[in-house]
């Protein structure tokens, strides 16, 4: 409703029911038009889009992998590879967008879409990489500037 208020700034409108109804209708029509225009704009962006399709295999054996999750990072849209490990992404994508290929037990791979033909790509997934062992815990401490020796001595004379 906020956008309706923005269309009618101030409270000087005459309290006539009819005019409110008309303006409400008008603003809804406007909003719909704006929405349609926006979504069209969304589809026809300056970047050229193209079909992304191909096959996902297991790196060690080269066997096709069915059921691999193929997810477009920006839209949350995704599909899974078919019984032959093949997929065709449901909509075209532009250069610079990323697809993530993941399968349980295998390392997730990212595919960055280029400007060339991406209709026959091969993505191979390797077994989960070895665990890198890290150690940091949350300390939750509030930062305190480190006092220098000179600063500490100056502090005595403040």
């Amino acid at each position, binding site marked *: 409703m906020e956008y309706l208020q923005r269309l009618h700034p101030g409270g000087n409108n005459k309290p006539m029911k009819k005019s409110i109804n008309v303006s409400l209708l008008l603003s809804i029509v406007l909003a719909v038009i704006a929405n349609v225009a926006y979504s069209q704009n969304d589809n026809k962006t300056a970047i050229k889009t193209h079909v992304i399709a191909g096959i996902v295999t297991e790196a060690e054996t080269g066997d096709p992998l069915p059921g691999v*999750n193929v*997810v477009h*990072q*920006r839209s*949350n*849209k*995704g599909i899974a590879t078919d019984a032959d490990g093949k997929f065709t992404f449901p909509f075209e994508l532009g250069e610079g967008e*990323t697809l*993530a290929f*993941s*399968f*349980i*037990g295998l*390392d*997730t791979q*990212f595919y960055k879409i280029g400007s060339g033909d991406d209709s026959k790509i091969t993505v191979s997934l390797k077994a989960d990489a*070895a*665990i*890198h*062992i*890290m*150690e*940091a*815990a*949350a*300390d*939750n*401490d*509030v*930062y*305190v*500037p480190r*006092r220098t020796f000179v*600063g500490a001595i*100056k502090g005595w004379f403040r």
Partner: protein
Amino acid sequence: MRGICLAALLLIAGCCFAQNADSVAEVYAGHSLKDLNLLSQKLTGSLKTDVEKFRAIYKWVCTNIEYDYSYASKIKSKRGNVSADELIRKLVTTRSTVCSGYAWLVRELSHKAGIPCVIVDGHSRSAGSNIGGTGRANHSWNAVLIDNQWRLCDPLWSAGYMSSPETFTTRFEESYFLPDPSVFILNHYPLKIEWSLLDNPPTLDQFLNGPLIYAEALRYRAIPIIPSLFKVCVAANESVSFSLHKPPGNDAVKFVVNGNDEDVTVKDHSCTVDHTFKRKGTYAVHFKVNDRYVATYEVTVR
């Protein structure tokens, strides 16, 4: 916009489901780690959606695994020369581990429940680490695929915190469960930048030298934006602006310098304070939301 709506929806859905999933996690408190298939089945079998299942796993791991401080110092001194087998054996037998063990367990239990999940390694940032310098990869967390969307979480930082240099205090921290990636990046910088889940992630240099945030910044989605650097240099009696980006709400925002709190109002998603430092010296300048610290700058007045 669509992303924000979805995130809000997921958050609301998450809160409703959380209770159910959390009570499942509580029922199996103290369960053995000898059979991970069995544990995963018990934690997720009665729950319907992936977000509920993952929540039960996450809550169980955060509340049943202990952080092993001495083991962490051993790993730190050996610079990662501990084998994964040894780490897992220790986790299964003692139910205590370091961040990589938490991330491994969340991944394994998720996989057994059919939820894609990965370990993300990278740099974590706090008052004691990765402030300036060249950066040191010191931490592991997780990314999980729920409803076709990759989300982030940090099980160790949700489990508790170091209350003194050698004591780990257990306290569940909600902020690190599926947070907004644009705030999470301020204290978690992945080695593989795709795992930031951002279209325009900052550089490692920007991460290491940006303002410092705390867990509560994620809860309130508060992002310090001005100045862009943690270390600020000004002349005495020169005015300097500090700005915090935050969605509007009823939260009380305060600006803290020299131990004095000053109320700040949030206007159009941000609040700005102009401050003049009169005396030379080094100051810590903070933003607080609802009396919890969210961000810090270090100001040197010359």
